[in-house]
């Protein structure tokens, strides 16, 4: 593993500095769009209000409603095809939806007066397949949106980019191209790229599903760091051991519906719905073939042990 350990003691720049972005006067106190109310601490960051979505006649989301508070870490799980990825992509309107409304930090996602690119620039997103730009160096990947979207100078953008690259332990790779890095390294760069925009929320769409098993830990480590620093996060993942350790709340989806929306203790301890019980028991059964959850190890973010992927 080429990852260098995170400099725990020499932390100067917090990864999540949504509260520390002096050059982004447009966001606070004005909210994502000028004139919109700002989100105060503890306030709702993401409000998903009764959204439904159809692909033609096929309904993928049915009346989904939930909230994510500032600083909260919410895991969205459920079987394949349950609509969890679609739901998270609705939050920054990468997927349009036909009914309901989503509000991010006071800004309505589906609204004529909303500047969608500006809203998206403050909502970080990490994809299953990394989606780094293969024709650009790692440094350029980290700076291009800062320069083009936020209008930062090349110098400022590079400083911010390299700071974050150091925080995900990849300083040595600044001049390489994405194709030269391993999957885990690419995903860490992708997280740094999203953070470079000073997002107020981070969305993760199965960030470890495309990784080789030995690289999953390094990506989850970065996410744990981020959660510790108080970033608001909504994470679609199959890593239930990770969810159990780090999440504040778990949303369980099945067939396009939010079936269960509970505190993590309640969800893992005593899931109310039969569908969630079935889902969990399948994963727990799977444990017979892998390591049981090692809670002691889980308390050390840098040595997180992960349950094997549930079989599909």
């Amino acid at each position: 593993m080429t990852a260098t350990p995170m400099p725990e003691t020499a932390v100067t720049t917090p990864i999540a500095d949504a509260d520390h972005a002096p050059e982004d006067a447009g966001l606070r106190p004005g909210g994502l769009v000028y004139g919109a109310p700002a989100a105060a601490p503890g306030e709702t960051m993401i409000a998903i209000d009764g959204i439904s979505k159809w692909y033609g006649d096929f309904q993928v989301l049915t009346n989904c409603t939930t909230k994510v508070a500032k600083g909260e870490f919410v895991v969205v799980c459920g079987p394949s095809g349950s609509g969890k990825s679609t739901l998270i992509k609705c939050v920054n309107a990468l997927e349009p939806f036909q009914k309901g409304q989503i509000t991010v930090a006071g800004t309505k996602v589906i609204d004529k007066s909303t500047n969608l690119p500006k809203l998206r620039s403050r909502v970080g997103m990490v994809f299953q397949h990394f989606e780094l730009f293969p024709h650009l160096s790692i440094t350029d990947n980290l700076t291009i949106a800062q320069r083009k979207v936020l209008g930062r100078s090349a110098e400022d953008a590079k400083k911010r980019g390299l700071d974050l690259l150091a925080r995900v332990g990849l300083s040595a790779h600044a001049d390489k191209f994405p194709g030269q890095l391993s999957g885990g390294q690419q995903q860490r760069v992708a997280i740094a790229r999203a953070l470079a925009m000073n997002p107020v929320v981070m969305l993760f769409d199965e960030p470890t599903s495309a990784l080789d098993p030995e690289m999953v830990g390094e990506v989850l480590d970065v996410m744990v760091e981020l959660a510790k620093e108080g970033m608001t996060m909504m994470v679609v993942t199959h890593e239930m051991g990770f969810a159990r350790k780090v999440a504040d709340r778990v949303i369980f989806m099945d067939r396009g519906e939010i079936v269960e929306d509970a505190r993590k203790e309640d969800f893992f301890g005593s899931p109310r719905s039969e569908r969630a019980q079935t889902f969990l028991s399948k994963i727990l059964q799977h444990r017979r073939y892998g390591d049981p959850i090692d809670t002691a190890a889980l308390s050390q973010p840098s040595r997180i042990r992960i349950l094997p992927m549930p079989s599909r």
Partner: protein
Amino acid sequence: MLSNFDFGVILTSLPYLFGQGMVFTLSLTVMAAVGGTVIGTLIALARLSGIPGLWHLAKAYVELCRSVPFVLVIFWFYFLVPYIGAYAIGSKTPIQVGAFSSALITFTAFEAASFAEIMRAGIQSIPKGQTAAAQALGMTYWQTMTSVILPQAFRNMPPLLLTQKIILFQDTSLVYVLSLTDFMGAPSKIAQRDGRLVEMYLFAAVVYFTICFLASFLVRRLQGRFAVIR
């Protein structure tokens, strides 16, 4: 039999052949290639835009250019457009469109149509996730296209792109029908004047072949260098 031929005529006419003929051919090729690439890319974007009126228009244009013989359009544009233009602006005399400008416009228009199809395939070959990632970072449509999608599309297709330009280079010989002095027209004029048809056309063929063969060879060599590592 070869003793009946006089290849010396080639040597004496070299300055004319290259100074006028080849310069004309190359300028027409380069200008039409650049114009065709830019306009073709815009047509490809229009076709992929999904905006109802716009993509119908782009599709109709590409289909039209594919469905009429090119030589006909060269003729049509050169002889008819001055009159149509005059009618349109209410002038009594045909408007003056120089032979070179006329040829350039026709070639650019056609090159744009065929390049639009290559570009469309090039853009579609870029994974959808790249667009999603760019948009998630807050990029607008144009920022996404110019910074993320088009640079990758161009790098993925040098073989096709450059092969298309080689074909364009050969096709410029069609301006022969307007009696222009390109690298086909120049040898032809010498051939008629001196009665040396075989020698001149043979020479023209050899030069076209050499240039196109070398260019194709270079394209293959370049192919590996440009590709984006995924």
